[in-house]
């Protein structure tokens, strides 16, 4: 299978005052196209930082990230934004919906940024799939946490991404709602044939993916396929 994401010798450090803090050190792994993949580890192990670097939200100090065959470290911010808009979808722990936009408008954003003409139609279909047909014109403040995360799910798939990054997608939800969202996520993912990368604390959730990368102290502890 072709590799959609290649990470090699990644290093990320932050400077706080005169102190240099190494968050990620010598990280290397690869993800196959269409695979489901999870990154697990305790708090402060560098999971979210790694996800950000994989998605081109930040630049590493050294090492390389190759997404969809293109090295991200050689691109500027706008080129990376264009890449994200075409190839990447996101789901965040705290939903990250734009408060001024309705559910329908939030889902349309990635398509509208591309200048797509049929954004509303695609967004309506996706919201229908996640069971929010009757919530199209509601604003985030008028939706429950579970509903907000379903809007975020629809948005993540709206630009038909090649790879989807989910950062603790159930972190802000109760168990029951979280389970529903996860089922929906895997279902949509299967339908679209998207590569899925999940950052989570939840080992049960991680076990539902095909491969698990364990981090500790900024280093890869293990990288193994699930049974």
């Amino acid at each position: 299978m072709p590799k959609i994401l290649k990470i090699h010798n990644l290093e990320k450090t932050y400077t706080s005052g005169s102190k240099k803090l190494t968050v990620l050190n010598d990280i290397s792994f690869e993800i196959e196209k269409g695979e489901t993949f999870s990154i697990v580890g305790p708090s402060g192990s560098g999971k979210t930082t790694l996800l950000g670097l994989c998605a081109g939200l930040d630049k590493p100090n050294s090492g390389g990230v190759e997404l969809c065959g293109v090295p991200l470290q050689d691109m500027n911010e706008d080129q990376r934004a264009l890449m994200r808009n075409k190839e990447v979808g996101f789901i965040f722990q705290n939903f990250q919906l734009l408060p001024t936009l309705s559910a329908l408008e939030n889902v349309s954003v990635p398509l509208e940024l591309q200048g797509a003409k049929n954004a509303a139609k695609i967004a309506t279909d996706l919201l229908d799939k996640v069971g929010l047909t009757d919530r199209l014109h509601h604003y985030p403040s008028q939706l429950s946490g579970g509903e907000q995360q379903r809007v975020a799910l629809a948005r993540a798939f709206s630009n038909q991404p090649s790879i989807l990054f989910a950062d603790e997608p159930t972190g802000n939800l109760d168990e029951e709602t979280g389970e529903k969202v996860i089922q929906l996520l895997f279902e949509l993912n299967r339908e679209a044939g998207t590569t899925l990368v999940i950052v989570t604390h939840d080992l049960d959730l991680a076990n539902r993916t095909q491969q698990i990368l364990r981090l500790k102290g900024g280093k890869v502890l293990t990288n193994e396929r699930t049974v």
Partner: protein
Amino acid sequence: MAWRDGKASATRLLLFMASIILGIAAVVSIQSFSENLKENIGQQSKALMGADFIIDSRQLPNERVQGIIDSLGGSDASEVNFASMAAFPKNDDSKLVRVRGIEGQFPFYGTLDTEPISAAQEYQEKGGALVDATMMLQYDLKPGDSIKIGNLTIPILGSLKSVPGSSAISTSVAPPVLIPFRFIEKTGLLQVGSRKEYQYFFVAPETMDLDALNENLDPILDAENADLDTHKVTSQRLGRSYTNVSKFLNLVAFIALLLGCIGIASSVHIYIKEKLRAVAVLKCMGATRKQTFLIFLIQIAGMGFVGGLIGTLIGIGLQQTFPLIIQEFLPFNVEISFSISPIIMGLLLGVFMSVLFALLPLLNTWYVSPLEVLRIQEGSLIKSRRARFLTFGSVLLFIYLFSFWLLESGAYALGFVITVVVTFSILAGVAILFMKAIKRFFPKSWGFIARQSLLNLFRPNNQTMVLILAIGLGTFLISTLYFTKDMLQARTSIENGTKDPNIILMDVQTAQKEAIIPNITSKELPIIDDLPIVTMRMHSIKGVLSNTIRKDSTSRVRNWVLNNEFRATYRDSLVDSEVLSEGEWISEIELGKPTEISISSNLAQDTDVEVGDEIVFNIQGVLMNTIVGSIRTVDWGRAQMNFSIVFPKGVLENAPQFHVLTTYAPDEESSANLQRDLVKNFPNVSIIDLRQILSILEDVLDKISWVINFMAFFSILTGIIVLIGSVRTSKYQRIRESVLLRTLGANSKQILKINALEYFYLGILGSGIGVLLSLISSQLLASFVFEVNFVPSFIPFLVFLPGITALVLFIGLVNSKSVLTSPPLEVLRKEG
């Protein structure tokens, strides 16, 4: 705790402070300057008059007045002054001047400021003239040159820089020329009917009670058409007129402060909202409601105090520049001194205003439940309607009390509060309507960027309304001032195309008329008006003698009517500037019928007469019975000769009279040519060149509008500070939104466009509403106050609207730079 928490939010608190600093600076500078003016007028009271008291009259004192002057030991100095043309043989020029013939050592207080200094002492003895310094510069005159006034030619001994009691503006139409009194006779200009004023200056012994003197003598002198003015009364009158101006400016400054306070309320609202979780945590740990409330109250009060202090210091610095701007309006030099009361006022205002306006959001800390630690519920705060009502009430009460203190009138203060509330409500109302309309009718088909930037105006915790209020109010003030200035100028200017008279010849004797007319027409200039003037006084009104009316305290007849020497004319038709409002116009008297005259509506009101009432005039010793036949509404603003009393033809033709002739000179050269000729041959004729007067008027208007624009500038500047504060306050939210968009694939250009468009909407909405409202208010002013046709100038639309929008855009974008450069991951992590 207040200090510790405040330290952590120092940058944001600084911006809150900036909102009130400007308002306080404006109020303190104006207040402090007016205190200084008052003090200066008090200190220079005697120097303003040059004597302790003056008796003045428009005619040579009669026996009774002379008796009073003698009983006071005779005057210490005296003066006769009148307007006349002066010719300058050196360059063959001429100019209307006020000739002041002085006898004695006037002034007794203050000085005649001359160049050379010795000229003030020597002009009496050496028999020379002191000529207004600006006029000498204008006509290139030097000491030693001569000046011709009527039949008198004397040398100029020095230039006159200042005379006690007159300002640069008040003397700009007819600049003063001082000559020894003994030369007045030789000018040959003191003829019957010419306008003149006699003044007798007195130095009072220290024991003399000037107030008692004024009380005793003024009514007696009034009855004899004379007047007594003590230095105290004069300076009080002067003080009052300047106080009125400074009160007005103070109110404009106060509006700027109110604007700043609304900015504070809005920023504190968001600041406190973000602190609510921390307050709930404190409450969980056992802090009482009072303690948590006090933490933020102390912060806000401290911020108000520091803001007040900085504002006061800036205000005190600013007032140093005021004398430079308005010195020409003042008949004395202003010395700025240090006064404690504006400083105390500035500090108190700073603390009170910030606490008052922040009270409503501060109350949230009182009502926040410890349960909020677990979950912040939108809209669950401020349960007490009473607290809310009390806060609003206190804010209005404070505005009322402060304006009452400024205006010293309950009714005016109430009027001001109502005006402020109505203006803010209209601005807010129109803004809300506009925003709703835009949101509703904004084309859905427009691109994402245009729609997203518009929606940003409605984001949670938005400060759109405050910003539109601030920008709108500033634009409204500036545009209204601009339109008003336009109206005033339109009212006074003579259009080049029209042939309205622009040169008026006064004091033309009947015998001279026939010689002067050919002089004018030979230069191919038209005679537009030839108006006979007969001077007269009112002897009795409705059968009651003027003297009796004076003593009657219940009479509704205004005093000036009884003392005034009227200049009436006679003619058979109405002129352009008047409309018959009551009665019947009589063009010519019929034999055997009573003399029916026409009077202006303002005179009818001040004389308390109606059509059919009788007035007896004293026409230079001869009594004449008349009946009010008609009342006219006169447009006094028109630059032409208007009369309050018009006789029909056939009555006054043989009375002693002089004439006013008017003509139209197409350019300055022909005007100067005519004036030169007339001054040479008819020295007693005064020539008023309206073009010159209008240019002086324009200059005055320019200076006044400069002062008012200066105040409006404070509003705009406060608006800008509120804008910066708001941009900063919502910065984190903007960064979050932008980062999110960038995460979803938006590029820098798209984000920049969204931000720019948002500020563009704010700027165009605010300034658009401001200009629109100013258009309405100017139309109202034009219809009801100035009574002119209002043709709006394009400047506010072409300059203010785009200019202010561009300014808002610029400030917004400069302050949003970090929004564009923040790394996405960092922001998203914070959210987690």
